């Protein structure tokens, strides 16, 4: 999947949102009927309901991964709990499948494609936000439009191109193609950040004899670090979660990423190895979940920067 964000305009960017401002109870202040019971009915119960529906699949993933094969298919006792937890599926994953290798592949691709995309986006974002030249605004919009092109539209011709380049089963096929959706989004996010940095800071450096490039590297980029971090976290998540290109380009078991390895090798025809599948899903979700838990605010800021004019 791709995600949605970075829809800033080149000429009128929203100010960067450094985390969601906490302004609570807005418009829903204490009114008549705001009793404890009222709050339960109107707030706590619905919130608990949302939490339950949201988190139950993860609980089910978790509980399944520790069930022994016999317990997995035994519905006489409650399936909601595990009686005799076992690490069998996890051991299986690392000894009988190439899960470790798939994880390594996924990590390498996500890290390298994120870094490549960030370098391109910082340069392009600075260029589009700060420099004046003919065609800048058109190119800016052009890059935004490419963000809206889903992989579904391009996977067949891309497979054709990758075959011509002899990059099948090569991590470079993913490292080179993921930036097509990482760069447009990061660039748009960064344009907003660059524009929010006062021009005067840069101009005084220019007057003091710094070159444009020096001003960019020493002044603008450091000030835009929060934005760059947001873009990095988002780009990493997007490439970690990518599936279609990887499914098409990677057929060797050694070359696969987690999502592709799991769906193609832990499902054999009608046989689903549920214990291993859920263990792999849990482990494969962990890195992005951890990253997310450390940077929730940066993540939300990146995600909503586009949709909300700050």
């Amino acid at each position, binding site marked *: 999947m791709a995600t949605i964000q970075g829809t800033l305009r080149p000429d009128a960017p929203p100010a960067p949102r450094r985390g969601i401002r906490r302004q609570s109870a807005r418009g829903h202040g204490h009114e008549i009927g705001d009793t404890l019971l009222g709050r339960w009915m109107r707030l706590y119960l619905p919130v608990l309901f949302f939490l339950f529906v949201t988190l139950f*699949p993860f609980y089910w993933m978790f509980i399944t991964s520790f069930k022994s094969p016999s317990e997995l298919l035994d519905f006489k006792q409650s399936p909601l709990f595990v009686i005799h937890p076992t690490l069998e599926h996890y051991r299986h994953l690392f000894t009988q499948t190439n899960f470790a290798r798939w994880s390594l592949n996924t990590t390498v691709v996500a890290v390298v494609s994120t870094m490549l995309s960030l370098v391109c986006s910082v340069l392009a974002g600075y260029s589009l936000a700060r420099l004046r030249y003919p065609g800048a605004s058109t190119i800016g919009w052009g890059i935004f439009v490419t963000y*809206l092109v889903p992989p579904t539209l391009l996977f067949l011709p891309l497979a054709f191109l990758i075959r011509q380049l002899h990059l099948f089963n090569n991590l470079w096929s993913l490292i080179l193609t993921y930036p097509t959706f990482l760069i447009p989004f990061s660039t748009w996010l960064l344009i907003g950040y660059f524009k929010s940095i006062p021009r005067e800071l840069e101009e005084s450096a220019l007057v003091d004899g710094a070159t444009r490039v020096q001003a960019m590297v020493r002044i603008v980029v450091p000030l835009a670090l929060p934005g760059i971090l947001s873009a990095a976290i988002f780009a990493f998540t997007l490439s970690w979660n990518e599936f279609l290109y990887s499914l098409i380009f990677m057929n060797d078991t050694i070359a696969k990423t987690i999502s592709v390895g799991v769906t193609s090798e832990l499902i054999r025809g009608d046989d689903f190895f549920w214990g291993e599948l859920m263990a792999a899903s849990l482990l494969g979700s962990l890195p992005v979940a951890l990253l997310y838990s450390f940077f929730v605010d940066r993540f939300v800021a990146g995600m909503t920067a586009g949709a909300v004019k*700050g």
Partner: protein
Amino acid sequence: MSAAGRPAQAADAAFRQPRIRVFEGEVLLGYLLLAPTLAVLLAFLAYPFVIGLWLSVTDSEVGAIGRFVGLGNYRFEFLHDHVFLQSFSNTFVYTAWTTVFKLVLGLVMALLLNQAFPLQRFVRAALLLPFIIPTVLSTLAWRWMFDPTFSVINWVLTRTGLAAHGMNWFGTPRAAMASMIIVNVWRGAPFYGISFLAGLQVIPVELYESARVDGATRWQQFLRITLPMLRPVLLVVLLLSTILTFADFQLPFVLTNGAPYSSSHLLATWAYAQAIQGGAVGVGAAISLVLFPVLSVVTAGVLIALQRRD
């Protein structure tokens, strides 16, 4: 102009000189900084798009580019391929239903999260989780929850007496579509919710205060203040999400992959089935290009919405 304007003008002239010099250098530097981004996008996005157009009018198979067949692939799809016609309508049904549910649930989620309650930050982070986790992996968990024999959902439904017997989730076309819609809503609603929340938080409190002074009810405040103020965010989120849902591949591929009897394919999964599993690359390219007109219209909508906002 009074005399007071003079020193200012002199100062301005002093500043103007370096600025003009800088501007001259900006054209070259501007394009230079854009070069890496444009190179990636041209090579792996624009060029494949052109190849895709060409593939769709040939009888290409895997590994070999075929002969020119004009609009033959498109004619075949629309006149003779029943699965295509089914997946064509499925794609619209899927997009429409998921969008309605995500919109309503996202709005409810945002209104809940906009209030102060204990652990509010934790709840917000938890509710966004489905959007962060790799779609393929979370969809696998759902597939296990919908399992024909060992569905935990059915177990709960029958145990609590909500249903006399379990539902065969992938047994009928209707149930299969319903399961896809449920998982998509589960995954996508948090994005709506968090974006709307960011939108709610920039609505000035004064509006609600003066409405309360005038005796407006909560419902009136919601209709007259919240919804209109949220409109720009609503529109952008809606359009971006429509694009992604319309071109969705991962979720339908992992959850049903057309089951039962190729009845629940979406355009993306059917293009994959025809081209990769069936070997008809030309036909597959034509199917994925059928997405293009709709995506273009929605993309134009996004651009107009963003431009009108300022």
